[in-house]
């Protein structure tokens, strides 16, 4: 195998976007092997995967890609990161403690694409599943000392239940930051404040940056 320089991050991220748009796992994996092999897994994750998924986020917000493409891109990136980190030499990021759930209803796609983006950024996260009642979710997050709770909602009635979570978390001392997303928040950009969330993001890739923002790390 000939070793060539992996190149700078921006062109690599653009190449990865092309691979993901074509749903070309083989080419994406080859790019990852070349880049991560020379620079290490986390530089590849931070400098290539995260910007590539950010580009998908931008295109999603402007109608340039569809939800199915965001999902497939996230899935390929998750598989790549799983492979990069599977040897055990490099562990996933365990800090902060992150959990995710779809509150009250069974629409799981939003939760899944956010999970993919967060895992593709190298984080570990606890998945509380779908259809979780708001009060149950709040209690579990507190009991598990979750530092960032990601909550997805598709139905407006589910989104409004998030206020129950934010109230519970505030009563518990406010150590858990609450980030929300889903169609109701896109349709009403003031809704996240009304339900007491700390932040919201219109696209899955925003979650990675919001995790840092709500912890004051950016």
């Amino acid at each position, binding site marked *: 195998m000939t070793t060539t320089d992996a190149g700078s991050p921006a062109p690599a991220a653009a190449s990865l976007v092309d691979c993901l748009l074509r*749903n070309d796992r083989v080419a994406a994996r080859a790019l990852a092997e070349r880049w991560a092999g020379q620079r290490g897994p986390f530089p590849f994750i931070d400098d290539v995967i995260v910007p590539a998924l950010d580009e998908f986020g931008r295109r999603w917000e402007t*109608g340039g*890609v*569809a*939800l*199915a*493409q965001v*999902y*497939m891109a996230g899935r390929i990136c998750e598989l790549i990161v799983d492979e990069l980190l599977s040897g055990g030499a490099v562990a996933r990021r365990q800090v902060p403690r992150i959990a995710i759930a779809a509150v*009250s*209803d*069974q*629409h*799981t*796609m939003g939760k*899944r694409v956010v999970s993919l983006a967060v895992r593709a950024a190298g984080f570990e996260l606890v998945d509380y599943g*779908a*259809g979780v009642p708001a009060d149950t979710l709040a209690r579990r997050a507190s009991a598990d000392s979750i530092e960032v709770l990601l909550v997805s909602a598709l*139905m*407006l*009635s*589910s989104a*409004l239940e998030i206020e129950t979570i934010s109230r519970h978390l505030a009563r518990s001392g406010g150590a858990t930051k609450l980030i929300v997303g889903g*169609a*109701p928040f*896109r*349709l*009403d950009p*003031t*809704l996240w404040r*009304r339900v007491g969330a700390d932040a919201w993001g219109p696209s899955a890739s925003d979650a990675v940056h919001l995790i840092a923002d709500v912890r004051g790390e950016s």
Partner: protein
Amino acid sequence: MIGVAVSSAERLDTALSFRPPDRVPFFLPAHLQAARRLGLGVRECLETPEHVVAAQLLLRDWLGHDVVSAAVPAAFELEPWGGSVEFVDNGPPVAGPPPMEPDDIPTLEPPSLSDSPRLLGALRAIEMLRARVGDAVPVMGSIVSPFSLPLIQLGFERYLEVLVERPAEFQRLMEVNAAFCLEWATAQVNAGATMIAYYDPMSSPTCVPVDTARELGLPIARRLLPFIGAPFAVHFASGHSIPLLDDLVALGATAVGIGAQEDVAVALERSRRRIGIVGNLNGVAMCGWSPADARAAAAHLRAAGAGGGLIVADCHGEIPYPVQDDILSTIAETIRQGAPEAGD
């Protein structure tokens, strides 16, 4: 026409013929608010045909809008496939966990309507509504498309895997779903529905690339919709529609619902008087509107629809439960003020 009362059916026909109606036709699917006004719980109202009819007639009296509807929540359409319906106090019922696995598809058979008490109840509601309003008011039925039903049959993620990686199972699922959808749609038409809303969010460019919709979603619609025996409107349930307008014209759709984030003027311009536009009040934002907000939004659409081609409605097919009655009254009153003045 001065002095001659125009029926809702005539008003819709005029608007959908792209001529100026006496006033812009509108429809606010506020059955959750109607249940509240009737003193009924959401479940009690939706499950009982007599209550569905009472709610629809109440909305006609209260709002003066131009359609009655026996459209059922999508969760009801999942029930014949083994799915469950979960009711909440402050919103529409939602589908329970997906009842199917991809491995179930090869042996899947379409269920019978006769096994679904809730869908049979909806047919009874259509019959009663039609008996009450006759031909003066359109009676709307609805189906979830064969291409979109798997979103709740399998869940989005497993459905995408079938769609992308298991073409034989995908084709089988579409055949079975289309058989059920055809039976369900024609039963509604036979019961008295005069138009069918075809809910197909999966074909929206919001969910899949336009090429995928053209290759997979719309051909299924083309094999199904010409045979239901009634005009149909395609609705993407808040998803974007404008990129598919030409395709929907070719499909023979009478009208299409557009998303809240789409521009109604652009939709009307690109429709080029070939397909009616339905929309596009933002139901979610409506929860926080003041009466002035409601008046402004309704006046904007009233002006846009003055020349025909527009039915004012929400963007999703259901007014959210938290929307207050005074907001809906304001919207209705604003629309009912009649043909707008120039510059309105």
